[in-house]
């Protein structure tokens, strides 16, 4: 299968010299659902920011559909437009993503800056508003929205460009179960139409559903393991060593039950 992203020997440190990524090597197949999991501070967000061409590695190479992502290429307007149309990034903090006065303008920001035809943009806008159930607040200021509404609006700002790759940083953090379900369903629907989905999360409840492949990032800022969800999620030792799992104690009647905190494992 064709590779959409290929990363080789990626190193990155923040200006404060704190190491964020150390020797990252991996690739992502076109059309797959890849999930990067890891505890807080393991470099997941930095990695996604790099995949979106917002920062560049200090060592190593990052390729997108056979083209290197580097400062030289991003100085070329045609390349930037093409890349930004193909790759959409949903930031962890929706307040960052929603910088316009109203949700409508935020959703239309991408099309207006990436040269999408206005009629086509408005058609896509109407479709998205229905799919994401944003009808009641498109003309409201983002400050007035709930967390879930903001998250859906943030997703819409990216989906309007119909990206080939959707990158999401903690897409369900702080959401109620219904909104989480809605977002997962949308992601699955997009993937069924060929969209590559790359997600970073430490919420193991959703990983199984939104992944064909999982990458675990460890405390040493490297990819410590790569594999299929069924293998990774059953390896409790691996998950516990990477702070993704803790012991869960609860009672069934009077009987104390102890098991790893994994909602996808059924217990007696």
């Amino acid at each position, binding site marked *: 299968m064709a590779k959409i992203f290929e990363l080789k020997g990626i190193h990155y440190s923040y200006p404060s010299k704190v190491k964020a990524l150390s020797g990252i090597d991996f690739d992502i197949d076109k059309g797959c659902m890849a999930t990067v999991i890891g505890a807080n501070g393991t470099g997941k967000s930095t990695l996604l*920011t790099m995949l*979106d061409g*917002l920062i560049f590695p200090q060592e190593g190479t990052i390729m997108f559909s056979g083209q290197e992502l580097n400062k030289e290429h991003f100085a070329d*307007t045609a390349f*930037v*437009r093409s890349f*930004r*149309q193909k790759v*959409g*990034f949903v*930031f962890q*903090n929706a*307040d*960052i*993503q929603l*910088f*316009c*006065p*109203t949700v409508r*303008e935020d959703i239309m*920001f*991408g099309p*207006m*800056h*990436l040269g999408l035809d206005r009629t086509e943009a408005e058609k896509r806008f109407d479709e998205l508003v229905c799919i994401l159930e944003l009808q009641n607040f498109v003309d409201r*200021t*983002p*400050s*007035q929205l709930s967390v879930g509404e903001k998250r859906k609006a943030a997703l819409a*700002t*990216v989906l309007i*460009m119909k990206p080939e790759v959707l990158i999401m940083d903690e897409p369900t953090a702080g959401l109620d179960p219904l909104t989480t379900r809605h977002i997962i369903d949308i992601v699955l629907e997009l993937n069924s139409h060929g969209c590559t989905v790359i997600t970073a999360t430490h919420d193991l409840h959703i990983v199984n559903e939104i992944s064909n492949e999982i990458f675990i990032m460890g405390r040493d800022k490297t990819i410590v393991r790569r594999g299929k969800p069924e293998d990774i999620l059953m390896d409790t030792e691996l998950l516990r060593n990477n702070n993704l799992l803790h012991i869960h104690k609860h009672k069934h009647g009077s009987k104390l039950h102890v098991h790893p905190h994994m909602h996808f494992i059924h217990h007696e």
Partner: protein
Amino acid sequence: MMNKFGTSFADKSLKAAISFLEDIFLSEETANKKGLLQSLDPRAKIVFLSIMLVALLLTKDQAVFCVYFILSLILAFLSKIPIAKFLSRVWLFIPFFSLLIILPSTLEVFTPGKVILEYIISGINLSVTREGVMQAFNFVMRVGLSVSFVVLVNMTTRHDILLKGLSFFRVPDIYLATVNMCYRYLYVFVKTVENTYLSVKSRVGFVRDARAGRDIAGWNIAALWSRSYKMSNDIYNAMLSRGYDGSMNIRYQFKLKPADIVFVCGVAALILCCAVFVKFGVL
């Protein structure tokens, strides 16, 4: 320092921040009502405001000021703005401060004329003249009414739509986008300050003295600066991610309705009538 009512300057600052948020909500709320000014195109309102400000600048007649005052109340009523809130917002403090500024001009020393209050202390003439009082009245009315019409337009138009209206008058897009974002994130930061202060208060009960209050304010300012710096970088990245290339593309499409033209022409006619009546001594 805690005063006898148990409030510190930090409490007062927090209340001011919350009051700011309430003002935003009130403006948003009134802007979304179905009233006269709300129904107008933002460009018509900007033209109306400009005409009113020029008219107020040129007016010297007290009767005309009264006509404009009544006009502001009628517009507030027709736009479903709570009259008490509107009057308190404009006429509670602004006239007082403008009066303080203009007070010396009421004295005979600065404005000679018919003395209506003779007052001499240690050989210094502090007598007040009729012309001086009229000049002060005109000044206060001019300031108060100017602010009234600005508040009317502000309360009946969402800030983003008002800024869109300005884009029609060739105000640069990058300037409008920057003001819009400032407004948007000011709200986020005020909310952050409020939450931080409440979290401090919930842990320590209340701020015991002025020094502790200053320390908390200091941390807050430093933390807020650091957060705003990080946020500005993140927002810039979010903009880049969606195709921002240094130029803002926020051209809007407005539709001017006959009602907008009728309104602006009506106001212009009223101003013209006032000028004619004053000229022929009717007012």
